[in-house]
C-alpha cells in the first residue's frame, strides 16, 4: 500500500478514537463533571483531527474543525463559560465533526450541512462565520515557498538585476540558549546565492572577562543573486528577537560586472563549507555539545519504541488463530477418543490427555479473548442518537450508561449496533412521554433512558430501560386482535401481551413516526438478536416504564451444545435454548390438527415435532412416544418439544459456518466437527420452530391458545 494511504487509514482510525474521547469529554462537560484536563482533551481531539485533515487536504473538514477548535480554545482558556447552552452547541458541533470525518472517509461525496452549527459556534467565538471557515492566515513560511520560475534561457529580456543584500547579524545570548547556530544560518544564506562573510570580533573581550554563555560575535554577510528579500528574512525567522538583524539592499546597475568580490580579510569563505568558520561559535558555547557527541552516536541504533501496551493486529490473523485453535481442540478430542478406545482404563495416558484437554480449553479461551472488545464502541454512538431523537420528538432525555467496559466478541459488537439503535429510538420515541405529559403525571420533565451491559452466566446481558409510560397492554391487545395476531377471546398473561409487540407487522404508535422507522418494528430487532444466538425479553410497569433485556452469547465461535442422535445422523442443539429433556409416556402425546402433535408436559400442552421426520433423516425412529424429547424454548412464541432418537452428550463445539459455501438452510444454523471426526449439523431452534409452525398449520394464535389451555 502507498505509505500515505496507510497513514490515511491510521488517521481515520485515530479520528474514531478522538471522536470518542471528544464525545466523552463533552458529555462530562454537560453533566458538569469536567475538569480542565477533560476540556483540554476535547480541544486536543478537535485539534488533532484538524491537523491530520490538513495533511490530507480535507479542506471542508479542516474549515469546520477550525471554528470548533476556536470555540474549544476559548472554553479551555476560561474565556468562554461552558454553560449548558454552550455545551449543547459543542455537542452538536461534535456530531457534525463526526459527520465530516465520515464524509472525508467516503471520499467527500456526501456533503455535510454544517452551516447552522458553524454559525452558532461563530456566535460563541465572536468570529465572522464567513471568515470562520477560511484557513488560518497564510504563514510567512508558506509564502516563501511560492514556486520560483526557473528559466535559464539566455535571451531573457533584461530582468532587473539582483541587488546585493548586506546582512548584519549580531546574535544575542538567547539565540545560543535556544540551540540556534549562526553557522547554519549563514550556510542557509549561502544556499540562496554566493556570499562573502566577515566576522566582527570587535566586541570580544579579554579572556579574563569572557563569559562563556554570552554572545560576542557579529557577522556581515553580502549576498548576491537572490532576488527576494523575504527569502533572506526567512533564514532568520527562527532567531528574530534573539539577534540584531539589519538587511540593506544595494542596487546594482544592469551593466554591473559579473565579478563579485568583497574583501574578506583573514577569513575563509563559507563556500568551502569549512568548519573553521564556525569554530568561534563552538568555542562560545558550553563544552557539553562535544562531550555529548559520542553519546549520540551510541544511541543512534537503539530504537526507543512506544511504551503502549496494545498492538493492532489484522482481524484476519486473529481469525486464523481462532480457527487453528478450534481445529486443535477438535483434533485433541478425536485423538483422546481414539486413545481411550484402545488403551485400558486408568492408565496414565488418560490423565495426560485430561491435562492436555484442560490446557487446550484455556488456550482457546485466551484466543477467543483476543477478539473481545468493550461494548463501548457501540454504546458511544448512543448519546448522539438520544440527543437527535430527543430533538426530533421534542422530549427531554437523559441517557445513563453503565457497564460500557463489558467485553464481548467483536462480531457480536458489530451486529449489536442496529438493534440497539432501534431500541434506544423506540425508548425515546414510544417509551417516554412528552415533558408536559410527564409533569402532569408527577414525574420530572426530563425522562431517563438507561443503557447497561453486564456479564451473567457466560452471556452478556444488555438492557435498555426507560422511565416512561410503560406498555399500554389493553391497547396492545386491541391492536393484536385488530391485526389478526391473536383471537379476540385469547387468554393471555401480561408477559404474553408484552411479547406481542415483537410480532411482525405490529406497531403500537398511533401514527408511524419517522423516528422508529416505517414498518420496521421490534420484530426486526428480535430477528437480529436471534441471529446472534441471543434472546430479547421485555418487562413493563404501567406508568413507570419499560425494560428490554438482550441476552447474547459472548462469542459466535463456540457454542455449548447437546449432541443428539437422529437415525444415522448426529445433531447439535444449542444448550441455551434447552429447558429440559424427558422420556414421554405415550398417553401424553396427543394428535393436533391434521398432522400436528402436542405433548402434555405437566399439564401444559407443547407442540411436539420429530426432528427425524422434519428433516427427513434416514433411519430415524418415527415412534414419538418412544423417543427422547427435548423441550426447547424459542424466542417469542414459546416452547416446543423436539423428539430425537437418543442423547449422546453435552459439549462445547466449534461453530463452522457453511453459509458462504452452500448458502442458508432453514432450520440449520451451522456445522461442527465432532470428536470422532464426523460432521454434525447445529440446529437453528428458532428457525425450526418457525418452519414447523407452518408445517403443522399452526399460527401464533393457536400456540397461544395451546399454551393457555
Amino acid at each position, binding site marked *: 500500500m502507498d505509505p500515505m494511504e496507510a*497513514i490515511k487509514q491510521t488517521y481515520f482510525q485515530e479520528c474514531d478514537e478522538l471522536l470518542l474521547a471528544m464525545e466523552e469529554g463533552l458529555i462530562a462537560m454537560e453533566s458538569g463533571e469536567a475538569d480542565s484536563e477533560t476540556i483540554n482533551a476535547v480541544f*486536543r481531539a478537535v485539534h*488533532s483531527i484538524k*491537523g491530520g485533515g490538513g495533511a490530507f487536504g480535507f479542506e471542508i473538514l479542516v474549515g469546520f474543525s477550525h471554528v470548533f477548535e476556536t470555540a474549544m480554545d476559548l472554553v479551555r482558556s476560561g474565556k468562554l463559560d461552558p454553560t449548558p447552552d454552550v455545551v449543547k452547541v459543542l455537542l452538536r458541533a461534535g456530531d457534525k465533526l463526526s459527520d465530516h470525518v465520515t464524509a472525508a472517509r467516503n471520499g467527500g461525496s456526501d456533503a455535510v450541512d454544517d452551516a447552522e452549527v458553524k454559525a452558532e459556534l461563530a456566535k460563541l467565538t465572536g468570529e465572522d462565520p464567513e471568515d470562520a471557515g477560511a484557513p488560518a492566515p497564510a504563514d510567512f513560511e508558506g509564502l516563501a515557498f511560492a514556486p520560483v520560475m526557473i528559466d535559464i534561457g539566455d535571451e531573457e529580456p533584461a530582468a532587473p538585476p539582483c541587488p546585493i543584500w548586506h546582512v548584519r547579524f549580531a546574535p544575542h545570548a538567547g539565540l545560543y540558549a535556544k540551540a540556534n*547556530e549562526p553557522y*547554519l544560518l549563514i550556510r542557509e544564506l549561502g544556499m540562496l546565492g554566493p556570499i562573502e562573510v566577515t566576522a566582527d570580533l570587535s566586541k570580544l573581550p579579554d579572556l579574563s572577562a569572557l563569559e562563556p554563555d554570552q554572545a560576542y560575535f557579529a557577522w556581515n554577510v553580502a549576498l548576491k543573486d537572490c532576488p527576494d528579500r523575504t527569502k533572506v528574512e526567512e533564514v532568520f525567522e527562527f532567531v528574530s528577537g534573539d539577534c540584531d538583524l539589519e538587511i540593506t539592499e544595494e542596487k546594482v546597475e544592469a551593466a554591473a560586472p559579473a565579478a563579485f568580490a568583497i574583501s574578506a580579510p583573514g577569513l575563509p569563505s563559507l563556500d568551502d563549507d569549512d568548519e573553521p568558520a564556525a569554530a568561534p561559535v563552538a568555542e562560545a558555547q558550553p563544552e557539553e555539545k562535544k562531550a555529548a557527541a559520542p553519546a549520540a552516536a551510541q544511541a543512534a541504533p537503539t530504537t*526507543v519504541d512506544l511504551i503502549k501496551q496494545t498492538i493492532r493486529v489484522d482481524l484476519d490473523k486473529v481469525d486464523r488463530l481462532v480457527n487453528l485453535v478450534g481445529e486443535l481442540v477438535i483434533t485433541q478430542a478425536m485423538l483422546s477418543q481414539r486413545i481411550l478406545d484402545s488403551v485400558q482404563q486408568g492408565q496414565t495416558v488418560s490423565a495426560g490427555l485430561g491435562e492436555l484437554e484442560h490446557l487446550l480449553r484455556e488456550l482457546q479461551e485466551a484466543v477467543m479473548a483476543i477478539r473481545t472488545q468493550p461494548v463501548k464502541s457501540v454504546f458511544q454512538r448512543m448519546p448522539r442518537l438520544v440527543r437527535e431523537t430527543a430533538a426530533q420528538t421534542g422530549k427531554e432525555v437523559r441517557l445513563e450508561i453503565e457497564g460500557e467496559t463489558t467485553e464481548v466478541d467483536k462480531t457480536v459488537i458489530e451486529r449489536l449496533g442496529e438493534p440497539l439503535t432501534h431500541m434506544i429510538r423506540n425508548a425515546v420515541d414510544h417509551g417516554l412521554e412528552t415533558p408536559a405529559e410527564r409533569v402532569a403525571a408527577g414525574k420530572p420533565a426530563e425522562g431517563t433512558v438507561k443503557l447497561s451491559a453486564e456479564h451473567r452466566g457466560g452471556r452478556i446481558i444488555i438492557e435498555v430501560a426507560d422511565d416512561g409510560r410503560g406498555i399500554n397492554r389493553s391497547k396492545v391487545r386491541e391492536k393484536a386482535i385488530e391485526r389478526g395476531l391473536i383471537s379476540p377471546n385469547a387468554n393471555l398473561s401480561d408477559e404474553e401481551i408484552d411479547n406481542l409487540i415483537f410480532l411482525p407487522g405490529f406497531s403500537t404508535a398511533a401514527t408511524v413516526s419517522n423516528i422508529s422507522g416505517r414498518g420496521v418494528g421490534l420484530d426486526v430487532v428480535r430477528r437480529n438478536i436471534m441471529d446472534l444466538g441471543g434472546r430479547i425479553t421485555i418487562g413493563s410497569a404501567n406508568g413507570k416504564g419499560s425494560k428490554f433485556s438482550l441476552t447474547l452469547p459472548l462469542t459466535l465461535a463456540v457454542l455449548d451444545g447437546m449432541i443428539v442422535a437422529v437415525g444415522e445422523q448426529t445433531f447439535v442443539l444449542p444448550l441455551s435454548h434447552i429447558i429440559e429433556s424427558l422420556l414421554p409416556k405415550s398417553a401424553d402425546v396427543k394428535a393436533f390438527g391434521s398432522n400436528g402433535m402436542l405433548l402434555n408436559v405437566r399439564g401444559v400442552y407443547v407442540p411436539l415435532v420429530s426432528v427425524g421426520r422434519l428433516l427427513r433423516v434416514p433411519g430415524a425412529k418415527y415412534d414419538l412416544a418412544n423417543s427422547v424429547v427435548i423441550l426447547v424454548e424459542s424466542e417469542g412464541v414459546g416452547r416446543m418439544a423436539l423428539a430425537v432418537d437418543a442423547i449422546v452428550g453435552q459439549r462445547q463445539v466449534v461453530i463452522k459456518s457453511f453459509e458462504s459455501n452452500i448458502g442458508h438452510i432453514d432450520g440449520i444454523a451451522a456445522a461442527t466437527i465432532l470428536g470422532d471426526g464426523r460432521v454434525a449439523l447445529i440446529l437453528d431452534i428458532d428457525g425450526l420452530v418457525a418452519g414447523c409452525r407452518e408445517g403443522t398449520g399452526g399460527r401464533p394464535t393457536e400456540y397461544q391458545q395451546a399454551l393457555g389451555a
Partner: protein
Amino acid sequence: MGKTILTVDDSRTMRDMLRLALSGAGHTVIQADDGVHGVEVLEKAGVVDVIITDINMPRMDGYGFIEHVRRGSANKMTPILVLTTESEPAKKMRARDAGATGWIVKPFDPEKLLAAIRRVSP
C-alpha cells in the same frame, strides 16, 4: 549523514507522517506520544540531533517538554522544532520563550520539514 531525531506527538497520524518523511530522508527516528513520554525516551536515548515536538499534548504539553529539556538535560543544547498548526505569533513566541529553536507549521510538506531541520542542525 542521517541524524537521530526524536518526534513527540500525541497523534499517531502525525507520528507516522513524521516517520515517513524523516526516515525517507535517511534519518533515524525515535518517537514519543507526549511530553512525559518524551522525557522518558530521551533519558534512554541520550543526546539526539534534533527534537520535533507538538504543542498540545496530554500529561505534559510541548511548552513543558521544551522547558524540561532546556532546564538541564543532556539535550539542553539540542535544537528543538515545534510542530504546530497555530500560526499565531503568540503561540510561537511562547514556544520560543520556553526554548524552542524553530517551528514547523502543520500541515507540512516533507521538503519544508527537512529544510527546517537543515536550518537548525548541521
